[in-house]
């Protein structure tokens, strides 16, 4: 998606570095199939807040008919990057990715104040790339629960958060346990008949906020017959950087993780975070200029979301314990749209003994979390969330299952606010309940 470095020609009013290609915007034939799938267009009814409109804006910038204006920047960040438009586009246009690249243009073209720049740099370039620092900074949160909020308070300006974000962030923060990274052994051996060896990519949010989920993921994988290698040096996947338009740091992180995981003797690289999975699968494009094609392809071919992986290898159900309850499933955007993993989680759910699966209306419609979007646009996020909750309520299922920490935070908070009966479970937690200890 980004322009080749060795051909630094400027495209219209984009800078040469990290700009959309002309082909990527010319591909849109403006049929509008994306319009009914776009949550922001549903909110505003404004063409410029639709995928077709955003691509047209990018095209106008590329053709020099429009400067990279404040409004273009606004749209780049108002886009949820949920990729529903990519799924709906018969022509193969990837409007979400065009906007992601435009976020990088925003950082290049619209100068920020010194303080905001340095704080943003601190978060994206110092904290996130360094798992130790990150975990230490979150450590006291286990004691105070609120420190995470204080951390956000300190950095709210840099993240440009919305009006009522603080209350929301506070409510969203789950009860924190000790980060998982330090606790997981380097090797968790397979149980029963061994089927292979996987590298587990433990994401930052997972280790910090949902350590119990990833503990279950590793347990389930081992029970399913896989040796699980969890490299302690794993760094952030780079998704937050792409999200904020810092493609340079994202590339550095991607290179590090690529080397780290290719040096492991594993058949697959598995993650239980849809955001990380989508990001890892896009290393191939992100690093196209930095790395040999063969290594990128090798890496790409090994990456699996854990739901996708277990479906592909076939879930061993003989030993599973029944979990007698009803569930519905919310599809994380970065799983169903970015990775096209949609049917597999449903099939896994149906394979767990005792589970009654109830389909959710508009299951693949975004929940309104979308990284920091839910805090930046808190009112809009609430509207997107309400639509989701209404559909959840209609299923009357006992649990809402999903497979991504961002959705997990948002949905759990929303259900609690609305006083609904459902709790949110990652699919691996549910599968963990069905997995015997022995």
């Amino acid at each position: 998606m980004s322009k080749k470095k060795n051909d630094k020609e400027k495209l219209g009013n984009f800078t040469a570095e990290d700009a959309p290609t002309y082909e990527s915007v010319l591909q849109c034939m403006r049929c509008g199939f994306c319009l009914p799938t776009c949550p922001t267009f549903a909110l505003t009814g404004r063409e410029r807040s639709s995928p077709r409109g955003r691509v047209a804006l990018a095209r106008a910038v590329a053709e020099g008919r429009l400067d990279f204006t404040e409004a273009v920047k606004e749209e780049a960040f108002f886009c949820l990057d949920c990729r529903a438009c990519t799924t709906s586009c018969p022509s193969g246009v990837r409007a979400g990715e065009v906007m992601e690249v435009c976020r990088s243009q925003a950082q290049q073209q619209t100068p920020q104040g010194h303080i905001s720049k340095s704080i943003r740099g601190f978060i994206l370039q110092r904290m996130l790339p360094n798992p130790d620092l990150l975990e230490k900074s979150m450590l006291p949160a286990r004691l105070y629960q609120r420190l995470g909020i204080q951390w956000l308070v300190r950095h709210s300006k840099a993240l440009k958060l919305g009006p009522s974000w603080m209350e929301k962030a506070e409510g969203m923060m789950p009860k924190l346990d000790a980060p998982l990274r330090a606790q997981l052994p380097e090797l968790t051996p397979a149980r029963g008949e061994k089927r292979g060896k996987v590298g587990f990519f433990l994401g930052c949010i997972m280790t910090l906020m949902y350590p119990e989920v990833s503990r279950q993921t590793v347990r389930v994988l081992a029970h399913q017959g896989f040796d699980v290698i969890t490299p302690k040096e794993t760094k952030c996947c780079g998704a937050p950087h792409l999200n904020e338009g810092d493609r340079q740091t994202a590339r550095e992180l991607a290179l590090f993780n690529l080397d780290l995981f290719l040096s492991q003797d594993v058949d697959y690289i598995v993650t239980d975070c849809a955001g990380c999975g989508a990001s890892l699968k896009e290393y191939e494009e992100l690093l196209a200029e930095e790395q040999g094609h063969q290594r990128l392809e090798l890496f790409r071919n090994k990456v699996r979301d854990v739901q996708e992986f277990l479906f592909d290898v076939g879930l061993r159900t003989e030993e599973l314990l029944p979990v007698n309850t009803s569930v519905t499933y919310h599809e994380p955007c970065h799983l169903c749209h970015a990775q096209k993993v949609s049917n597999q989680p449903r099939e896994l759910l149906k394979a767990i003994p005792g589970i009654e699966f109830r389909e959710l209306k508009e299951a693949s419609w975004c929940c309104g979390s979308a990284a920091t979007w839910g805090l930046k646009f808190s009112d809009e996020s609430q509207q997107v969330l309400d639509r989701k909750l209404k559909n959840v309520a209609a299923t009357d299922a006992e649990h809402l299952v999903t497979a991504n920490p961002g959705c997990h935070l948002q949905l759990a908070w929303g259900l609690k606010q609305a006083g609904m009966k459902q709790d949110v479970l990652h699919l691996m937690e549910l599968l963990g309940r069905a997995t015997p200890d022995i």
Partner: protein
Amino acid sequence: MLDKNILEILIQKLGKEAVVSEPEDLLVLGYDSTPGLHHTPDVVIYPTSSEQVQLAMQIARDHKLPITPRGSGTGLSGGSIPINGGMVICLNKMNKIIEIDEENLTATCQAGVVTLDLFNAVADKGLFYPPDPGSQKISTLAGNVMEDAGGLRGLKYGVTRDYVMALKCVLPDGTLLSTGGKSVKDVAGYAFKDLLIGSEGTLAIVTEITVKLIPPPQDKRTFLAYFDDIRIAGAAVSKIIAAKIIPSTMEIMDKATINCVEDYVKIGLPRQMAALLLIEVDGHPAMVAEEAEGVERILKEVGAAEVHVAKDAEEAASLAAARRTALSALARVSPTTLLEDATVPRSMLAETFALIEKLTEKYKLTVGTFGHAGDGNLHPTVLCDERDADEMKRAHAFYDELYEQVLAWGGTVSGEHGIGIAKKEYLARQIGPGGVAVMKRIKQSFDPDGILNPGKIFVADGE
């Protein structure tokens, strides 16, 4: 640039919410799905009522601003493009279904209701609104009315015109006109309603529509037939009609289209086949059984390579959905997709396919053809690159020659997309100077100042 005073008046009369004038907004409200056309309006109005449309229209008239109505911008002939700038009136926020009348079997809704939303709403009450243009998920009802949109079910159920019972609209002089009603019969004076349907937004702006509903078919059967030669597919269509079987759907896709669609939907369409027909028969179960047998027999007689029956409604729906993506999917392979809308008497289908093949070769183009074969309505689509001037020239020559023959066969230059900007010259060829002159006089009597959707349908004097 719009005069600041006009903007202030608009905001004062219509409210800030309804008036949009930021350059980035204007930039994205000057296109539809027609390739290569783009003009930027000076101001855009998002009305929420007929009264607001009236007010906007009056202000535009007072200040001599051209007005272009717009729905979702899915048109394929440039009908909603503000060719002279001015004011775009965007009706997609007028999206309420006002009433579903189960006693009279009608539905009344605002102009901007999305076609599929109406379909679903009436289906919940056990009723059926048949017109289903390819863009039904996005297109608005008023847009359908103004272009007289067709769709996949046109063969048996007709097009939008066949379902419109009443229209409320605002005339260019600012008055409200109500025409038609819920009465099944109505011969009171000139049939304004019928004149307005298909008028491409040049006579009035529709704000409210009442449509006829029918009971849905009780049963249906869906076939997918593959062919080694597209002309055999054409012959199959003609023979099925000649056997007095009217399927609800008889859609064709050629090899190029099959491959592009399959790239997107991945449902196992036959990439190596020259063409496929998607055929659906529906109605009373006994009739469906009889017609299905007839269709299958004819397909075998003419020499279809393979005939498959959809195993359930879900599979049938996925096939129809795949067909709806044809045009957009063709855009995968080239930056520009020039689409046409030639329609011939159904007995001429095989000849038309042969002609398209011949012209494709003659002008050295890549063409994907799909369309409503049962209606004789084809969409030969040139896959090209607007940056290649020579290729564009050849594409236009291709269509020129194609239309000449289509007209000679008694066909039409537009089955369902309208004339708009793109086909003005072809219309003149089809109906002659006398026909154009009458149409212009009708236009003049509705819109003497020529402010409503100028530059459409007719070649202007001196153009």
